[in-house]
């Protein structure tokens, strides 16, 4: 019984949230232009299902493209940074500096370079999401047990051997763990860029709807964003479980 309840709990909370929202809007007769009730949002979703769908695909594609670039670049840079202490020392402050720039501030530059469209969105998604991947991969490599490295080096293993046999497999849980963070950030980056300068995408759709005072549509966009975000997070979380199950199972064992 409690097991069932636990499984149902997330859904119950979502339903409750919408119910309270709907009730509050009706009881206090909140105008649609301030906070549309879920029923109005739903109506907007049904009415504008086509633009919502096509624009969410645009956002999905820009996010995915930026995310994949971040995965490739982040993995590569992470390996390089984790490889040598000197590179780590040299590059780390630069990366911290770069990462602390709010990426919204970069969007106008990207627009100047690449024009309004999908490329700034992709690049913003990329720029905002590669950092956690780099840090995680580098951490995984840098924290190889020194004794294990001794065992291998005493056998004549090269640095490359140590990396291939131990470092890289060891960094994989860190890598897949960082993907969950990265995909969320990439999504934020893409939507932020679309909101500022784009002619397609959910961010763009919501800005347009906002300037036309179509608040139900703005909220419909928000809900679609939430659904899309959850779905992408779920995919990476599933991937993590699948690829590095050993890292989860080994927790709590004596020597793992």
């Amino acid at each position, binding site marked *: 019984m409690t097991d069932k309840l636990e499984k149902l709990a997330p859904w119950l909370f979502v339903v409750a949230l919408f119910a309270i929202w709907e009730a509050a809007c009706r009881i206090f007769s909140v105008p649609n232009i301030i906070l549309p009730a879920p029923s109005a949002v739903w109506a907007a979703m049904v009415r504008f299902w086509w633009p919502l769908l096509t624009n969410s695909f645009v956002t999905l594609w820009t996010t995915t493209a930026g995310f994949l670039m971040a995965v490739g670049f982040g993995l590569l840079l992470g390996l390089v940074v984790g490889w040598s202490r000197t590179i780590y020392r040299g590059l780390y402050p630069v990366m911290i500096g770069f990462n602390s720039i709010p990426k919204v501030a970069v969007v106008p530059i990207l627009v100047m370079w690449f024009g309004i469209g999908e490329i700034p969105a992709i690049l913003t998604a990329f720029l905002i999401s590669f950092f956690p991947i780099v840090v995680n991969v580098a951490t995984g490599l840098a924290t190889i047990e020194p*004794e294990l490295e*001794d*065992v*291998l*080096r*005493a*056998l004549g293993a090269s640095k490359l051997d140590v990396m291939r*046999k131990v470092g890289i497999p060891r960094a*994989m849980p860190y890598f897949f763990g960082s993907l969950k963070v990265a995909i969320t950030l990439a999504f934020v980056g893409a939507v932020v860029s679309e909101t500022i300068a784009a002619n397609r995408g959910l961010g763009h759709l919501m800005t347009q709807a906002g300037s036309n005072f179509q608040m139900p549509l703005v909220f419909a966009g928000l809900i679609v964003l939430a659904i899309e975000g959850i779905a992408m997070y779920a995919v990476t979380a599933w991937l993590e479980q699948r690829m590095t199950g050993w890292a989860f199972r080994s927790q709590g064992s004596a*020597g793992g």
Partner: protein
Amino acid sequence: MIDIENVSLAYAGRGGPVLAVEGLNLAVAKGEFAAVVGPSGCGKSTLMKLVTGLVRPTTGAVRVNGAAVSGPVKIAGMAFQNANMLPWRTVADNLLLPLEIVEPYRSQFRSRKAEYKARVEDLLATVGLGGFGHRFPWELSGGMQQRASLCRALIHEPSLLMLDEPFAALDAFTREELWCVLRDIWERLRFTVVLVTHDLREAAFLADRVHVMSARPGRIIETRDVSFPRPRDLDVCYDKAFTDIVRDLRDKIAEVRKA
């Protein structure tokens, strides 16, 4: 087999160079079981690294197998207090790891993998881990992991086995069990062993010769031959002669700790 002559090793510490060992002399004959005991921080791990060629001495010479050590010796197997098994590999695959690295196995690894796998199973069986090859290390108890770690150190049939407090993290009963595992496998293969340990009974039970190291900077200040007949039984630990040796060693270490 091992010849350490008047070796000192300094490394850069916070307040200038620190001497880990100084005036270190140690000789271990081929096939000998040597134990090194001493207070903590006496540079025993430095000794391990010197012999395996992971660090070079600042002064003096280290010779293994007659040749001066100038890089990783490649003929040594190592095991530490922590079993350090790779959690993403099965026990058998963990044991194969040294064969993937050290020559001549490395270049024949693909073509002779089946043979190597059989060898892994045989070795596991000799330490009482028969049939555990397909398990993951984290499914094993601490004692079993340590057995596997010992196997990993021996899979490439090294002529030298370097052990750095390999049984320190185990409970007393498991530890004695593993003493016997090590004893049996050594009786059979007769490789040279350097066992670094805090446990004086362990040293006296297993070794032919026990070396006592001084506090930092470490050097050998006393060498005791342990001449009980082999194969030794755990009962030997309760002999008067055995307890006398242990007490002597203990007194000696208490002396160095005070100095």
